[in-house]
């Protein structure tokens, strides 16, 4: 056998991918007929491709959700507020139409996913607000916490984030996927804003988790049937520190005594 008859690993790959020059196909096929190990590998690689296509191929036939409408996405050029308005409108339409009759939605998002989406939406909507970012200002903290706890029917807490350089701007009551939600806004001296959104949820407990959308990101968790979403700007390292501090305080508060 001379060098021309030897088949390399890369040629075997190229054979599987139909990338082989025509004059090498016959050589590779002859090689495979006399090298069962390589023939088995080629078969295994083809099987991998089959598994991948089986697992992910359906997306090619799935109607993309409305969020991918190019008209809507291109409106984002006119600024973040237009995008917020568009997604808020889409969200309202989604609520009005209901998930089940919404033919294009093939996967119903979990409460927690809807919760974090709402929280990020509220973050984007209110943190850009200069004159009326909150309903009740942070200097009325006890009143704010008492009011929101009453409306949610469970004690809520505005964590102390002074050590993270954040002061409470205030809060407001918002609609959430499962009922009323409490919304607290914090701000640091350079004007970066972070928000905490919380409300009831039936899911079990989770650890601190991360999600992102656009320029913003959030850490979220569930503790004693209450979901919390701490949102902030994505590109600063502060978010995790702030979320961890809030998580620790709320975790400590709700921990069983003893």
């Amino acid at each position, binding site marked *: 056998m001379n060098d021309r008859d030897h088949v390399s690993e890369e040629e075997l790959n190229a054979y599987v991918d139909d990338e082989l020059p025509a004059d090498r196909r016959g050589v590779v096929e002859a090689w495979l007929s006399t090298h069962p190990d390589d023939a088995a590998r080629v078969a295994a690689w083809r099987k991998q491709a089959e598994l991948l296509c089986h697992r*992910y191929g359906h997306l090619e036939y799935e109607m993309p959700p409305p969020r991918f409408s*190019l008209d809507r996405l291109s409106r984002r050029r006119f600024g973040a507020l237009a995008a917020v308005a568009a997604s808020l409108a889409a969200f309202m339409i989604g609520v009005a139409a209901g998930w089940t009759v919404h033919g294009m939605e093939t996967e119903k998002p979990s409460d927690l996913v809807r919760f974090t989406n709402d929280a990020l939406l509220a973050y984007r909507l209110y943190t850009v607000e200069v004159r009326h970012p909150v309903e009740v200002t942070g200097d009325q903290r006890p009143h704010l916490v008492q009011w929101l706890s009453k409306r949610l029917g469970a004690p809520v807490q505005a964590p102390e984030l002074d050590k993270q350089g954040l002061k409470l701007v205030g809060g407001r009551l918002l609609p959430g996927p499962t009922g009323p939600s409490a919304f607290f806004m914090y701000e640091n001296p350079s004007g970066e804003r972070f928000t905490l959104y919380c409300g009831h949820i039936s899911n079990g407990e989770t650890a601190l988790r991360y999600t992102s959308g656009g320029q913003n990101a959030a850490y979220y968790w569930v503790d004693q049937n209450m979901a919390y979403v701490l949102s902030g700007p994505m590109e600063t390292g502060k978010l995790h520190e702030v979320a961890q501090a809030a998580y620790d305080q709320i975790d400590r508060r709700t921990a069983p005594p003893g």
Partner: protein
Amino acid sequence: MSEFRERIEAAIPALRRYARALTRDAETADDIVQDTLVRALRSEHLFHGGDMRAWLYTILTNLNRNRLRTLARRPVVSPIKDTDATTSGPDSGGRDIVRALEMLTEEQRSALLLVVLESLTYREVSEVQGVPIGTVMSRLARARNEIKAYLDGERPALRRVK
């Protein structure tokens, strides 16, 4: 709708498929696809004909790489997997193809998926990844061997997080 937009729109299902397999997380994948589309729409003036799909795959691959870099800077984060989301599918629990993908480096995974799932040529993948064809071929070969070893039940190499 302009021809440019029509071609972008036609590519959305394939972009979602690639992103889903690349990130193994439905939400993250769709976020990246959305960012890809926004970026493409803004960069119409930068697109001088040629293969629209390869161009979009390039944007998506780069956005995902940036995302992983950002994640890498945040140490104490649990994976972006919502247990409620349908990420694991019916074949979870054992050594399935999704878990096998986790064994690969990001470059290997991207090369394999672009070839196998998206039917790009080696040349197109080399453009998307910005590396010579030879590098694409060795990434592919390694990816396939790694997956085969994993599915055959060998212990995964201690590499993983990338």
